């Protein structure tokens, strides 16, 4: 379990910070196992969204996004969230409500912050263990991929590595620049 701890977020942060790419990749490999042709790296996901053009043009979501209310579906980080906002459930964009646990795994999106027009990597991490929160249910699908591209898929219950697959809510943890 320790090996998995925070892999999605930590690995991606390292990549984003251009640290020790090799070690990060081998760590990621530990999860992506059995996936020799799995070109699903979170960072590749960001690249594939064609970050440069993307950051200039935005998406239909980002054009209407805001940066002040993280309990609303159009908060900028939620460009690819599917589920209940942890911010409405007793948690925050990067904190699980008491009674649930953050999953060390996540899927990764990239969202544009309207304040600086930059694209950031966002780790959509599920909080697991408590019954579904049922508050602030949002479904944003910017650059969301089908389930056969799991790292960019928001339908999977991302509770691998926790004690429970009971879905409670979803966070949008800021990882770093997607640039």
């Amino acid at each position, binding site marked *: 379990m320790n090996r998995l701890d925070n892999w999605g977020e930590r690995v991606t942060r390292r990549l984003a910070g251009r640290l020790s*790419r090799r070690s990060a990749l081998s760590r990621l490999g530990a999860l992506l196992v*059995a996936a020799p042709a799995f070109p699903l790296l979170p960072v*590749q996901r960001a690249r594939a969204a064609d970050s*440069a053009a993307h950051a200039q043009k935005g998406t239909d979501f980002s054009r209407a996004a805001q940066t002040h209310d993280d309990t609303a579906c159009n908060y900028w980080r939620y460009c690819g969230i599917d589920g209940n906002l942890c911010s409405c459930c007793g*948690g925050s964009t990067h904190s699980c409500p008491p009674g649930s646990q953050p999953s060390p795994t996540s899927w990764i999106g990239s969202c544009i912050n309207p*304040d600086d*027009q*930059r694209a950031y990597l966002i780790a959509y991490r599920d909080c697991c263990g408590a019954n*579904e929160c049922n508050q602030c249910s949002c479904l944003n699908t910017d650059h969301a991929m089908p389930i056969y591209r799991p790292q960019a898929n928001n339908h999977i219950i991302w509770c691998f590595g926790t004690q429970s697959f009971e879905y409670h809510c979803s966070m949008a943890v800021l990882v770093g620049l997607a640039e």
Partner: protein
Amino acid sequence: MKRIAHEANKAALGVAALSMLVATGLGTAACAAGAAAPPVLQSETAGVTPFAGLTAHDVAYSGMDGITDGGVRIVNGDTGGLVASVYSSQYANFAWAPDGKTLYISETYWALGNRGTREDVLSIYGGPTLANEGEITLPGRLISDPKTHSFTLSADGHYAYNYSFQPAPAVTVVDLRARKVIDSVEIPGCGLVFPFGQRGFASLCADGSLAVSDANAQGKYAVHRTKRFFDVMTDPVMDESIGDPSSGLALFITYDGWVHPVHLADSPKFDKPWSIEQAAGLSPATSHVGQITWRPGGQVPAAYERSRERLFVLMHEGPPWSFEKAGTEIWVLDARTHRLLHRWAVPESAYLVAVTQDAHPLLIALSHTWLWVMNPESGAVLRATQIVTPGLVGVRGE
């Protein structure tokens, strides 16, 4: 998760291909950032919001079986916001330790959801993140629509009393400090649990009496019956009556609105019953066909503010046998003087009522979709929060 360890060796595969893509990606994107842009947002680490315990103004409620998910949800009465949620099975009941830091859930599971091995457990949640701290296996439970008095604690939080019906009625006594079941007390013909004293509890009986169970010096329980104090066939006492484990006071409320105050003890003291309707200057309700009048009703139709001895009752206008109808008003009654103090309208009909036990109490009314926080003195609705369909409700220090 089973496969991860096994397959970790294959990690080397694919890394070459991946790193090329990554390198390209980083290179492309790096050009995009404007040179004179505002400071870059800092990265974050994910965690769990700390839980300091149920506050005086928090309201905990469970989800109604069959209509919504189970689980216990905590709403902050001062903000209307959700504070925390804890998992439970269907048909669960819950109780808080007196300090509000530990949550006990009485619940039942089957290995394959609706079938397979049955397991009745008392699950314990607590610590800084309200995490699961293990389970105590129970010998049985009642599976029914939720009942406040099917699972309760002694006033000091030392013992839990779990009502079981399979279908023989019994009460399982759990020592919460030792975390083990210490007795199973059969209460034939009776049901539910109203704790009193150190280790005593009373149960309502089908003939209109109480069964009083108490432990001797060796901790062994004996049961005896009281007199019959209500007529169960014409006007039974509601399951959802009031029990106050700390004082041993019970206010048993009948379908027709009669309040029977009983001071629970090995020899309970029965005060004279009084009528909620009479307290309001009306004739008492009866079970006569066609008598439409104000009656108590709902799912958890009564709450009791201990310090000021105030009884809050959900009331509706209806015929006999309408004791599950939602309340359109909350009547505030002085349980000492048996007088009506206020009649507060609720925004929509409410099925559950609660009142916090602090010096500045909040009155809480719940429909199937809303929780309203009200001022018990003015009846003003302070805030409203959307909720999942509630089963039971509890506040700190009840």
